[in-house]
């Protein structure tokens, strides 16, 4: 637990969903960001449309930490139903703000916190006529109160309101009025600002606030993907929404209104998988965003793409499984499934972005790798990365980039060669050449998921069959050096032990590691970014005596891959597992590492 301080505290807003709170909360976060102070925002929302508890947590972190902290210093408790729980979560010395319009019969409180009441409902009922406004404006009213209490820059807030409603200018004044209501009430009744508050800095220059799904959608645009198929599923929907938005903006001919892309809302995930396979087979870069249940449903097709060697790019925005699970909560629970999805001997390429910046980059890499290796490639994101706004370096682009279309024979090349065989390892690199329909009569071949020999012919012969699947395994293995390399962050002093982690665990792990380091526990850290594992991964496990594997699932799935695919002995690996569905916080990792180090007697 850590004390709240200037530019270093956590505010949590407890709301009911469907009441318009999300944009108000986003506005608060953006205001702090624009004041030059780094923020970490987590939106925890229910799996329905209206009426259930939702939370928005904003960590203000001058040092620019990227994970949750685990503390809550300031709660805006707008939801009576979760009030008790919200109250309990508040750190000692914290502040609770609530709507005191109606007296509460059994009002719970704690002696170690400060409670502030503002009659938001009454203020809004008095000020606004329309029923809908009265509900919506309560949110803006607490924004005003919070702004006063945290010393937020009102100009910044007003500017944000104007941008937010630029298309509905009538609403600007209404919202500004509501903000003023809350602001003025606070100034009048409370000591403003609180001891912890925000002071302007210049720590967010060159940064943007973006969510991973938007970044990945944008990445697909830059990758030159022209076809996307999907079936709506939380939390992957916004990825396709982003792709559609940017295509609409960038790829529609202004004169003719004609599109240079095609997006299809499929009838289900099986169909979405089939469509992107069809399009990729026919030479259009394609992708599908989905989540766990979608991967289960696509399993048969994934095996087909693997065996028939068709590029396939899948974004799995992971949510809490198994089954429908908690669709709006985060986990990293599809790692094992994606690594080996489908029946028979199958193995795939995985990319693990840790933030929206990497979602953008890896979206591009996924397309390159899928075409280079003619195989399914999974980008394993999650709700935390995908749907929360993260502060990251502004995305950049290298204008010299050219898509790697892999070993694709052109009409001219086909013209030259004697005879084309689809599955022949001509170059000894385990990757055969492919051709597109329509390019040349010589290029024709028959794609099938049934037994085929290296020439592409149907076979039921054991040796001919083996030859192809043996090459497939070798091809998969050769991708180890081509998937994104792990990021290794050595400890300041030489360390005998290490941490391995992945994806959205990164911020919390880095922070926990730094804090432990400050206390004298030195740990090297490797974040895995690709599968199959490269030599660096092997080296890291070889170089350390004990390795903590931090991940967000129950069954230690990443650790499982390490056991299966590297030479690491089991005794070296110590799982640290978080799977409640909330984004990981550094305190969890810190305590777990500390405890594990104690038990294992690591210096």
């Amino acid at each position, binding site marked *: 637990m850590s004390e709240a301080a200037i530019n270093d505290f956590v505010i949590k807003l407890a709301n009911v969903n469907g009441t318009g709170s999300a944009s108000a909360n986003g506005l608060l976060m953006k205001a702090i960001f624009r004041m030059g102070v780094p923020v970490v925002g987590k939106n925890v929302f229910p799996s329905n449309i209206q009426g259930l508890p939702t939370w928005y947590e904003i960590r203000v972190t001058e040092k620019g930490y990227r994970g949750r902290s685990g503390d809550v210093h300031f709660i805006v408790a707008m939801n009576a139903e979760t009030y008790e729980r919200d109250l309990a979560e508040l750190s000692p010395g914290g502040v609770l703000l609530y709507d005191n319009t109606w007296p509460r019969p059994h009002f719970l409180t704690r002696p170690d916190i400060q409670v502030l009441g503002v009659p938001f409902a009454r203020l809004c009922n008095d000020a606004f006529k329309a029923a809908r406004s009265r509900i919506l404006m309560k949110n803006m009213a607490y924004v005003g109160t919070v702004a006063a209490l945290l010393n937020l820059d009102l100009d910044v807030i007003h500017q944000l309101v104007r941008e937010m409603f630029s298309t509905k200018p009538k609403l600007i004044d209404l919202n500004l009025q509501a903000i003023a209501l809350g602001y003025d009430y606070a100034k009048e009744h409370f000591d403003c600002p609180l001891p912890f508050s925000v002071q302007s800095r210049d720590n967010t220059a060159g940064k943007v606030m*973006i969510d991973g799904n938007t970044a990945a959608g944008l990445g697909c645009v830059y990758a030159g993907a022209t076809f996307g198929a999907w079936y709506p599923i939380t939390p992957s929907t916004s990825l396709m929404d982003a792709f559609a938005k940017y295509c609409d903006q960038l790829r529609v001919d202004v004169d003719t209104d004609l599109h240079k892309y*095609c997006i299809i809302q499929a009838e289900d995930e*099986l169909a979405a998988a089939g469509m992107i*396979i069809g399009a990729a087979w026919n030479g*259009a870069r*394609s992708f599908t965003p989905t989540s766990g249940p979608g991967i289960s449903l696509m399993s048969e*097709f994934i095996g087909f793409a693997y065996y028939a060697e068709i590029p396939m790019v899948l974004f799995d925005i992971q949510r809490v499984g198994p089954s429908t699970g908690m669709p709006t909560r985060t986990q990293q629970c599809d790692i094992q499934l994606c690594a080996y999805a489908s029946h028979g001997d199958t193995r795939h390429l995985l990319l693990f972005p840790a933030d929206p910046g990497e979602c953008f980059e890896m979206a591009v890499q996924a397309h390159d790798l899928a075409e280079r290796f003619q195989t399914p490639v999974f980008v394993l994101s999650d709700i935390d990365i995908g749907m929360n706004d993260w502060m990251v370096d502004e995305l950049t682009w290298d204008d010299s980039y050219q898509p790697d279309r892999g070993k694709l024979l052109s009409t001219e090349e086909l013209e030259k060669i004697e005879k084309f065989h689809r599955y022949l390892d001509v170059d000894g690199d385990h990757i055969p050449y492919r051709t597109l329909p329509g390019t040349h009569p010589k290029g024709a071949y028959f*794609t099938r*998921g049934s037994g085929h020999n290296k020439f592409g012919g149907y076979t039921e012969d054991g040796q001919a069959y083996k030859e192809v699947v043996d090459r497939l395994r070798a091809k998969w293995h050769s991708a180890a050096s081509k998937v994104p390399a792990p990021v290794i962050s050595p400890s300041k002093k030489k360390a005998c032990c290490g941490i391995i982690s992945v994806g959205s665990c990164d911020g919390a792990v880095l922070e926990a590691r730094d804090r432990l380091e400050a206390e004298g526990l030195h740990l090297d850290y490797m974040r895995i970014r690709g599968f199959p594992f490269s030599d660096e991964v092997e080296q890291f496990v070889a170089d350390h005596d004990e390795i903590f594997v931090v991940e967000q699932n129950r069954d230690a799935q990443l650790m499982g891959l390490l056991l299966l695919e590297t030479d690491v002995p089991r005794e070296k690996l110590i799982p640290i597992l978080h799977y409640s569905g909330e984004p990981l916080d550094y305190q969890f990792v810190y305590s777990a590492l500390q405890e594990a180090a104690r038990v294992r007697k690591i210096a």
Partner: protein
Amino acid sequence: MTSFTKPHIRRKNEPVNKLGLVRADYDGAMSTLCAGCGHDSVTASMARAFFELSIEPHRAVKVSGIGCSSKTTAYFLREAHGNNTVHGRMPSVATGAVAANSALTYIGVSGDGDSLSIGLGQFVHAMRRNVNMLYVLENNGVYGLTKGQFSASADLGSLAKRGAPNEMPPIDPVSLALSVGATFVARGFSGDREQLVPLIKAGLKHKGFGLIDVISPCVSFNDHKGSTKSYAHTYQYYHKAVHADYVAPSKDIKVCYDEGEIMPVEMHDGGVIRLRKLEKGFDPRDRAAAMSALANAQKNDEILTGLLHIDETHPDMHALNKMEDRPLNEIPYAELNPGAAKLHDLQKGFR
């Protein structure tokens, strides 16, 4: 693309098409189906239709699911790419393929098991999207490849080889297609190539989803007495409603218009489908009429065949999605890449 692997052996005076190719240039690998299987006749009809339309083999694409019927894409057009996908899911692969390159001619081959059970959803949704392809459903009332279980198109009362009758109502692909708004709906019979070949040609030329339900008997598991999908039963009960023939764009087209019995339907490529009405007063452009003709035929135990419905006005998937004419897979990356400067601009909203 004009280069071809020349046909190897050519008989003297063998008919050639506009491309100078002979019918055998449209063949594929040797069939591994049972001798006498209806599907082999359909294969021959498909090859002939491509030949007669003078489509360059390598500019065609063949897609299929899994089943004896679905295997047949290997048995014609050896110079065309084929994609023998997974069971029941060909429509989605076809949809993606068509989306990626609208400039080729697409033919899908499936079976009644593949299309009406495991694949029902995809089949219906491909029709709904009006994907520009011809879908040939080789309908034998059974699962051939898995040895003779009833399929969902088995007729009420039709007997299985071991004698048990089917007691569930059949799913008729033609009714289904009409009910979900398909734009080209026809039925043929593997045993009547004279009717089938023109239908296939018309279907290939239709801009949008064309369905031809072809009764195609399974000699190994469903050609016995009591089966309503046998050769004998089909010959006895089938009834031709409308004969359709595609005529390529040419100056003479207009001349045909006057002939009494002939009704012309203009195609997107400027060609014409000539409909020869065999059933009085029946207009296949009227969907409701097609439905009632079908209902009547069912009452009379007739298997209505021919072109039963056509709607050239409904936009196909490409038009619905406002796609430009150029195939997606031919758009150069330079046109797709917004560039670094643009990326910077786009991110202004993220500050």
